[in-house]
């Protein structure tokens, strides 16, 4: 009863945001002269219309879910980790290089590549956490700026030292990973790969972790009221490093899964261009950092994106219609954030006044 209530409550806002988003999309469709019903029907078909399209949506949702989970964990602890982009790319790059250069059988390469992706991204993310605990550098800014370093570093790595020089086309990419080290596809001929299982398992594990473990409890309290947590003996610094490591690690896993399950090599820009990282952050915001909600929101965003491609293929309405709907979603979500931000500011002010008395 209580749980049902809680779920219904947490779903209300996102559903409302989606409805408004679709309504705004409808207006835009009418302005460009398309048929609203046809366009949305095409969008539905593009996302869920056949088994092929459905698995396509799942494949796209995979990195978004994993990234969203990582961001959700950090948000729950009160840390605004905006570094998913850089963490994703470092994870992908590390996975590709490990799979290419570590000797051994395919399954070993695969396992080590995934672990390398998680660890590289986790350390990158925990580094920002360390800068916060050690030098009080604002996490929001460090994570954001570390993205640039990661992106350009990866770009350099694949356009110079590790560039694929076998083909005639000089693309900024690594050579292809050998077949045996690929993440298996879940269905013959479909794009969804085993990474999706990681995403599902990750969702459940994170849900259980936050709800039932002591450390998850401490994360929640730290996010709820940092002063209360420190008063109760929660070690903020330690918890920050751990949660940032796991948060980044999940983004790294997303990158590794994309490289090993879809592209089989690290291609410069291929992880940034689809906007996985920002979609992940959006999914988290839509679901108020609830793990299961985040996974559902990620699926929704992926469906909007693959559906948008369907719209572009079959109607005169451009692909950007999806971006427009997403943008309206973001607006709605950010309206809620700034609202709660103002509320918190007021509370903090009141608390400051109270303590000075």
């Amino acid at each position, binding site marked *: 009863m209580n749980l049902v209530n809680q779920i219904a409550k947490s779903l209300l806002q996102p559903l409302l945001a989606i409805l408004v988003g679709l309504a705004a999309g409808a207006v835009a469709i009418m302005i460009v002269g398309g048929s609203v019903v046809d366009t949305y029907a095409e969008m539905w078909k593009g996302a869920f219309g056949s088994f092929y399209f459905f698995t396509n949506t799942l494949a796209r949702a995979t990195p978004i879910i994993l990234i969203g989970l990582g961001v959700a964990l950090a948000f729950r602890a009160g840390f605004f980790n905006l570094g998913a982009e850089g963490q994703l790319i470092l994870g992908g790059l590390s996975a590709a290089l490990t799979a290419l250069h570590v000797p051994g059988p395919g399954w070993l390469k695969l396992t080590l590549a995934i672990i390398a992706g998680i660890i590289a991204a986790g350390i990158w993310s925990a580094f920002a956490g360390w800068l916060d605990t050690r030098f009080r550098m604002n996490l929001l800014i460090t994570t954001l700026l570390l993205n640039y370093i990661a992106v350009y570093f990866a770009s350099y790595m694949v356009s110079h030292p590790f560039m694929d020089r076998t083909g005639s086309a000089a693309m900024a990419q690594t050579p292809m990973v050998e077949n045996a080290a690929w993440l298996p596809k879940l269905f013959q001929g479909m794009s969804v790969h085993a990474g999706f299982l990681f995403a599902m398992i990750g969702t459940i594990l994170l849900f259980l972790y936050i709800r039932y473990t002591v450390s998850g409890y401490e994360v929640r309290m730290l996010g709820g009221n940092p002063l209360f947590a420190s*008063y109760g003996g929660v070690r903020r610094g330690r918890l920050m490093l751990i949660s940032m490591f796991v948060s980044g690690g999940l983004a790294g896993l997303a990158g590794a899964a994309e490289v090993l399950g879809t592209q089989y090599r690290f291609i410069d820009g291929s992880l940034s261009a689809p906007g996985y990282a920002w979609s992940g952050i959006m999914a988290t915001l839509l679901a108020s950092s609830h793990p299961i909600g985040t996974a559902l929101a990620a699926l929704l965003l992926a469906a909007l994106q693959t559906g948008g491609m369907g719209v572009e293929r079959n109607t005169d309405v451009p692909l950007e219609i999806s971006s427009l709907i997403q943008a309206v979603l973001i607006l709605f979500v950010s309206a809620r954030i700034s609202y709660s931000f103002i509320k918190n500011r007021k509370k903090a002010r009141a608390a400051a006044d109270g303590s000075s008395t």
Partner: protein
Amino acid sequence: MLLQMKGITKAYGGVIANKHVDFSLKKGEVHALVGENGAGKTTLMRILYGMETPTDGSITLNGKPLQFSSPADAIANGIGMVHQHFMLYPSFTIAENIVIGREPRRFGFINQFRAISEVAELSRQYGMPVDPRRVIGDCSLGVQQRVEILKVLHQGAEIIILDEPTGVLTPLEVKELLESVRRLARSGKSFIIITHKLQEVMDVADRITVLRDGEVTGAVDASGTNVDELSRLMVGRDLVNLQRKEQTPGQPILELEGITLAGSGSKPVLDHINLSVHAGEIVGIAGISGNGQSELLQVISGLAKPDAGALRLQGKDIKDASVRQIREQGLAHIPEDRYQWGVAKEATVADNGLMGHTDRYTKYGLIKGGKVREMVRGWVERFSIKTGSLDTKAQHLSGGNLQKLIVARELEHRSPFLIAAEPTRGVDVGAMEVIHGELLKRRDDGGAVLLVSSELTEVLKLSDRILVMYEGRIVGETRAEEASEERISLWMAGGKRQ
């Protein structure tokens, strides 16, 4: 009758906050509204002030039936309210704070000269001296309280509601405030004072209405009643008079030597504090808040690190220990500001109760949820904490019930040393009795308790020894038997150690 509220009923869902409440106010009267937390005092006043709509009942002002839809409406009809937490802008001057909303203007700008002269005139007229040019942030709380009242008067209020007006004031400021209230009442203003401090009620009120569980249990003239009768009406039974039994303190549990904390200003926030608390002893620290008590508690509990000095708990050096280590060494801590330190408002009652107890309720890193709920449910029963369920968010509990939850949580540790900072701030008489009883019991069982309170009566009632803090130093120490309110008040105001 100036104001008449008849048969006021207010229901929130199934919960009835006010049940057929009658309340009236004569011109020039001081009418105290007393009752425990959750008795419905605030709800009744929120209805009068236009912040809530009653489910049933009528309000008449000067014989006219009225129903306010907003505070602005109430203000326009001459009703003003001074809230428990002051609503002033710290960086603006007194004059600016008072004229806000009805500023004298000149070419679209605020006319500072007129504002200042208006406020000076107002201050003179009502005999409440303030310097209109001073910035609020630099003023004492007593002065801020005065500014709040002047603001309401400037809005043209004839009826003034004061919500727990003396909570943050020093004894001297309380006296001044009560005198001002009496003087204003003589000049024709009418007051409604919401409070739970019965002695002040007896000092200032003409009439008293007592609420319990949303119903009026008594409406009496102050001249025809006494504190005992009032508390009986409030609680519904006689209160036990707590007695401290004679007891010789044992080993020192907490020891501070020369503890100094620099702070940001030129003066240290804590200046060579020496103190010790022994087993079986309650040491009370009196003082006006803001004289270093908060910082002292933070240093003891490990939330702040001192710049110099020694700090021992049960003989072990804890100067560089973490909060967790100090708690493990035997400290429990009822924090002074429950919302800032004591709870996470968005978290549930059960989650808030678990804080600090995680080590006891864990297996393989998992929380033993059932056991935790059992423990918290026990507290809810023993301290009669009013909460919807254990899954209710802490923010939905009233301040007093939240305080009981925090007290129960910290007592549960059964630690050798307990910090009790403002343990009964904002709680009602019944709960206060329970909390005081628990603190004394802890002492009788050989616990060491450091009590910090801005309520002098509380310090006098519970402590074996009393220290007074002023500007980061301990300026006076006395045994409870030899303590007098006068001497302590003098120390609190910065008088020298005799």
